[in-house]
C-alpha cells in the first residue's frame, strides 16, 4: 500500500475517522508524516481537553485546527495558543467555567477562528479587566448556548451564522444580544431556540433596522411564540430568506391563527424561499406557493383541506406525524415531487393517491414507522415495477390489521364530502390529545433537573431526541 501515490493515500485516509487515523500514524513514519502534514487530515484530529487535562502539558508537533474543552484544559494552554493559535479554526467550550480574561486571551491568540461554540459555558464575571482590546473575529459560526454575557467579549466580532439557545436569560442578556445583532453586517443565518419568554427578542422594534439580511431563519420555541412585530421582523428579510424553520412545541392558541395567516402570506411572497419547515403551524387560506421547493411539515401542521393550497414547484415533501393530508393538496402538488418522506404516520392510506398518479417524477420514497394498508403496499409495488429508478426505503412500517381503515379510504377516495369531514373531526380530536401530552412534557421540562438533563449533551441532538420521544409517544 505504501507504494500508492501520496494523493491516493490521502484519499483513503480521508475516508477514515479519528481513531483509525491515529492508528495509522503509528504504523510507519511515512503514514505519520502524511497525516501530520496534510491539512485536510490534521483537520480531522481534534484536540480534546477533558477533566484530566489540567494535570498535563501538551506537546504538539502537528498544526491542530480544532480544540474541544470539556470541564478543563491543559496546563500550558495559553503558551500553546501563543505559538499555534493562528492555526486554530474551531473551538468548543463545554461545561467549563472560566475567568473572562482567560477567555479573552484565548480569543485574542486564535485570530483566525471560524467556528466557536459555547455549551454550558460559565464566565466568572467578578474579575475585572474585561474592557479593551476586544478580539475582532470574523466567525462563520457562533453557537451560544450559555450565559449570553460572553457577548461582552464578542461585540467587535462578526458572524455569518449564529445559533443561540438559553435557559434563563435576563434583561441584560437580551440587551447584549440585541446590541450584538445590531452590530452585525454579514449575518446570514440565525437559529434561535427558546425555552422561556425570550422570543420577545423578535418583538423588539430595535431589530427592525439592522444591516444584515438573513438567508436562513430558524425559530424553535418551546414555551412562547413571538407575537407583536414578528411578521415585521420577517418582512425585513423577505427578499433574502431562502430557508425558514418555525417550530412550536406547544399547541398554537387561537390568537396565533391570525399571525400564522400573516406570516404565511409573507412566505408566499418571498421569491427566494425554497425550503419551509413548520411544526404546529397552519398554512391556511392561501392560494399558491410558487417558489417553495422543499416542504417539511410536522405535528399538527396542516394544510387546510377546503382551500386549495398549491405548491406547484415542490420537489421534496417530508411529513412527520401528519394528521391528514387532503387529496386536493396532493393533486395539485404531487406531479412535481421527486422526494417523498412519510414518518410516524398512523394512517397513510392517502399515500395511495400519490402512488397512483401516472406521470409521477418520484425518485425517492421513504416510509418510516407508519402503518400501511394493503392497497398502499400494492401501489408501492406497482410504482417500483413501473419506474426503475425509484429508490425505496421502508423502515419499521407495519401492516395495518384494521380493515376499517381500508374501507374508510375507499369511501374517501370516492370524494364524498361527508367522509372528508369525518376525517377532519378525527384530526381535531387528535390535536386535543396531543395538547395534553405536550403540556406534560413542557411542565416536566421546566423543572430544573430536567433542564439540566436537556442541556447536558449536544443541544441539537437533545432536541432531536426530545422530538423523537414525543413522536414515539404519539405513535403509541
Amino acid at each position, binding site marked *: 500500500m505504501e507504494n500508492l501515490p501520496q494523493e491516493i493515500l490521502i*484519499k483513503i485516509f480521508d*475516508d477514515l475517522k*479519528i481513531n*483509525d487515523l491515529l*492508528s495509522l*500514524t503509528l504504523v510507519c*513514519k511515512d503514514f505519520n508524516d502524511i497525516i501530520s502534514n496534510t491539512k485536510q487530515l490534521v483537520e480531522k484530529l*481534534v484536540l*480534546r481537553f477533558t477533566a484530566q487535562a489540567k494535570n498535563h502539558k501538551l*506537546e504538539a508537533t502537528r498544526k491542530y485546527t480544532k480544540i474541544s474543552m470539556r470541564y478543563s484544559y491543559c496546563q500550558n494552554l495559553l503558551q500553546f495558543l501563543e505559538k499555534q493559535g493562528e492555526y486554530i479554526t474551531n473551538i468548543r467550550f463545554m461545561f467549563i467555567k472560566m475567568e473572562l480574561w482567560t477567555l479573552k486571551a484565548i480569543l485574542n491568540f486564535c485570530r483566525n477562528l471560524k467556528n466557536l461554540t459555547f455549551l454550558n459555558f460559565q464566565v466568572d464575571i467578578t474579575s475585572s479587566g474585561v474592557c479593551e482590546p476586544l478580539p475582532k473575529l470574523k466567525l462563520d459560526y457562533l453557537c451560544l448556548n450559555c450565559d449570553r454575557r460572553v457577548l461582552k467579549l464578542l461585540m467587535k466580532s462578526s458572524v455569518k451564522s449564529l445559533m443561540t439557545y438559553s435557559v434563563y436569560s435576563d434583561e441584560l442578556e437580551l440587551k447584549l444580544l440585541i446590541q450584538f445583532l445590531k452590530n452585525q453586517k454579514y449575518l446570514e443565518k440565525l437559529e434561535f431556540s427558546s425555552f422561556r419568554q425570550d422570543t420577545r427578542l423578535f418583538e423588539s422594534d430595535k431589530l427592525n433596522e439592522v444591516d444584515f439580511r438573513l438567508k436562513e431563519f430558524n425559530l424553535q420555541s418551546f414555551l412562547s411564540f413571538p407575537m407583536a412585530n414578528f411578521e415585521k421582523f420577517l418582512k425585513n428579510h423577505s427578499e433574502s430568506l431562502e430557508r425558514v424553520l418555525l417550530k412550536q412545541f406547544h399547541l398554537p392558541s387561537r390568537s396565533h391563527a391570525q399571525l400564522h395567516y400573516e406570516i404565511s402570506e409573507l412566505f408566499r411572497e418571498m421569491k427566494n424561499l425554497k425550503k419551509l419547515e413548520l411544526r404546529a403551524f397552519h398554512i391556511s387560506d392561501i392560494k399558491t406557493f410558487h417558489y417553495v421547493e422543499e416542504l417539511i411539515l410536522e405535528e399538527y401542521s396542516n394544510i387546510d383541506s377546503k382551500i386549495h393550497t398549491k405548491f406547484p414547484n415542490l420537489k421534496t415533501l417530508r411529513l412527520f406525524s401528519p394528521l391528514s393530508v387532503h387529496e386536493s393538496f396532493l393533486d395539485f402538488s404531487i406531479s412535481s415531487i421527486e422526494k417523498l418522506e412519510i414518518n410516524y404516520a398512523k394512517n397513510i392510506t392517502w399515500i395511495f393517491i400519490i402512488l397512483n398518479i401516472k406521470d409521477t417524477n418520484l425518485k425517492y420514497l421513504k416510509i418510516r414507522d407508519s402503518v400501511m394498508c394493503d392497497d398502499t403496499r400494492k401501489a408501492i409495488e406497482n410504482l417500483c415495477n413501473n419506474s426503475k429508478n425509484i429508490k425505496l426505503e421502508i423502515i419499521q412500517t407495519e401492516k395495518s390489521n384494521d380493515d376499517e381503515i381500508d374501507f374508510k379510504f375507499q369511501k374517501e377516495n370516492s370524494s364524498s364530502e361527508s367522509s372528508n369531514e369525518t376525517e377532519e373531526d378525527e384530526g381535531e380530536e387528535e390535536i386535543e390529545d396531543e395538547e395534553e401530552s405536550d403540556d406534560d412534557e413542557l411542565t416536566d421540562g421546566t423543572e430544573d433537573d430536567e433542564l439540566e438533563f436537556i442541556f447536558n449533551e449536544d443541544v441539537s441532538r437533545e432536541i432531536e431526541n426530545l422530538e423523537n420521544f414525543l413522536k414515539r409517544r404519539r405513535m403509541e
Partner: protein
Amino acid sequence: MDIDRPSDPQVSVVSSDGTMFHTTLKSILLSGTIKDMIEHIGEGGVENMGAIPLQNVDSKTLEIVIKWIEHHKDNIQPTSEEIKDKTADFIDPWDENFLEMDLDKLYNLITAANYLNIPQLLWLSTRKIAMLIKNRTPQEIRSLFNIEDDWTPQEIEAVQKENQWCEEK
C-alpha cells in the same frame, strides 16, 4: 461530435502490454481521461478512430476496469464534487462483490481508476481499502498490508503521547 447518439458504437483500447479490448463508446466515456481524448478528435472521428492506447494500464487491470464500466454504462455518474460531499452512502451489492479481489489487483485498479479519471470507481476502490483499515490496531494494519515498522520505541512513544490528546473514547 455527437456522443449522445442512441446507437452505441464499438471502441477498442489497448493495454500497456499490447492486448486489445473491445467495448462500447458509452462505457468508455465513463473515463474522464478518454472522454477528453475523444472530444478532441473532432467530427466523424469515433467510428474511424483507431484503438486507444492506454500506456499506464496493464491487460489484467484493464479487463477489470472494462467489466466495471460496462456494468455501469447506463448509470448516472456522480462528479468528484458530489462524491466528496456524500456521507454514508449506499453501496450497490454488485460493486461490493466486484471489489472482492486480492490487494495487488486492488492497488492496480485504484491506480488505473485514478489515471483514467473514473471518480466513482476510484471512490469505491479507495473506500474498500479504508474499510480494511477500519478498527484495526497498528500491528494488524502492518501485517495486513505488509508494511515495515520503521519506528524506534522512543519515537513511537512520543507519537502515542501526542495522539492521546485526540483519542475519541
